[in-house]
């Protein structure tokens, strides 16, 4: 993560002085965006630069669902399974995605292209059912739209 430090120094300037520990989440987001996940050496480098105990970084990484220490497929397909989405077909949608890709929830396709997860409410209940691919929201989904979407993701 050392190559990201100049970027981090810039972010630091908008924060109140003396509370560098705040930078932990923004830095982890950026590291994950850059590498695809947070590696052990990233943790070491971040601890050194921020001056926080290693345990704090490990705790944060284990607590937040969006942060990961292992890579995922090129396309992380996350389907909401909460109340409104379940009421508009999320369960069938999850089943369809898994069947189409040939993997279970939490698994990655053999070619490394797709990882499938279920997630809780994404704040898009009005356009349920909803799935997210990497960062992008895909709303009002059904089997047909999903097939088109997945086919287009190479």
């Amino acid at each position: 993560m050392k190559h990201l430090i100049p970027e981090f120094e810039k972010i630091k300037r908008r924060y109140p002085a003396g509370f560098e520990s705040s930078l932990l989440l923004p830095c982890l987001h950026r590291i994950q965006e850059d590498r695809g996940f947070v590696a052990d050496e990233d943790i070491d480098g971040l601890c050194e630069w921020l001056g926080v105990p290693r345990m704090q970084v490990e705790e944060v990484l284990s607590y937040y669902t969006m942060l990961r220490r292992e890579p995922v497929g090129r396309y992380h397909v996350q389907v909401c399974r909460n109340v409104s989405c379940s009421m508009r077909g999320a369960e069938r949608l999850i089943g369809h995605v898994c069947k189409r890709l040939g993997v279970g929830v939490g698994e990655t396709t053999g070619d490394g292209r797709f990882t499938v997860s279920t997630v809780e409410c994404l704040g898009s209940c009005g356009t349920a059912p909803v799935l997210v691919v990497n960062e992008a929201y895909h709303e009002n989904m059904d089997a047909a739209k999903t097939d088109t979407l997945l086919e287009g993701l190479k």
Partner: protein
Amino acid sequence: MPGRALLMDFPVTATSHLLADYRARGGYATLRKVLTSMKPEQVTKEVTASGILGHGGAAFPAGRKWQVIHLDDGQPHYLCANADEGEPGTFKDRWILENAPHRLVESMAIAGYALQVRHAFVYIRGEFDLPYRRLQAAVDEAYDAGLLGERILDTDFAMDLVVYRGAGSYVCGEASGLLASIEGRKGYPRNRPPRLTVKGLFKRPTVVNNVETLANLTTILAMGGEAFKQIGAPKSPGTQLVSISGHVSKPGVYEVEYGYPVAKFIYDDCGGVLAGRKLKCIVPGGISTKVLTAAEIETVTYDHASFTKAGSGVGSGGMIVIAEGTCMVRLLQVMIRFYHHESCGQCTPCRDGMGWMHKLIDGIVAGRGQSGDLERMELIAKANDGTTICGMGDACGYAVVGILAKYRDEFEYWIVHGRSKFDGRLEVDAAELAHA
């Protein structure tokens, strides 16, 4: 139209979220007025006079919260906008972040001035991608235009605004969990005392307000607190952005003036239930608010007093419409699964209670329900009522108690017969939808 529009008062276009369009609509004129002709205390006075209640779910009077901050205590103060919006069924703050981000920025500058804040944060849930990019772009535009940073609008007031992304935790929508997250730690809520307005972010006096609450500030300061108070209902001034979803024909975000009849809102403004079905019940405002049956909503108006009288609450403004034929057991199962997943794990009643609750409901759904299971669920709900560090434990309890109070027969049916009274249905029949 469910009443006056104070926030959704412009047509959304491809550019309406940008600074130029916002300025053309009169944006930042109120900030200029505040910074050049008002003292900080006067701003707080207007907010108090407006009577505006928090729009995050707790409905605490914003002015009363602000008044705890002593402007001359020589300490840094912090302001945080709660854009974590994780309550199932709720997506109304998202509307503001995507379509009116400058409204939030201007309002936060006004609030920062009133509370003498040098560093302000918007805590936005990590999953929100477009809202984050729109908000960050608006913040960047504001900095470039001298509306944030040093010498705002050429006055002595300076304020930095950081958009802080969350990383997937519902409990970071709780004010103290939110602050813990900004401090770079797990989103563990904190016991009070001390209140956050005394010792909050970095142990300094902090005000945390919901995005919608803050977004109303430009309106309040433009028209004056007293005038704002005249809008809406006697104890609920102003409007509520309501996100409606579920088995409803026209889901989306609507601005409802407080006092508007709920039944009219659902049947007229939102097109009623999908596929011409009958309404079974609604979750009024986030899944911890007690469900109200179709009959009960006939006499409820959209305001705090009316909902409280009906035994429920305005909550987060996330309304979920449930059609007849939906299995309430499976619905509750989805809710409990959510709470279990999101428990931070600090305190005994929520940590162990959510897991137990989940196992019990899964058992019932799997046909292994035993007599006494419902009493056990009620025991867990009671053990979480007022005993936890934050409101999450209580919330699950309310969801359980509320649904059991009105649909206990469905649960008992499943325990006795080993299957759902309604085929475990959560969706309105897909075939019916095709013909709708």
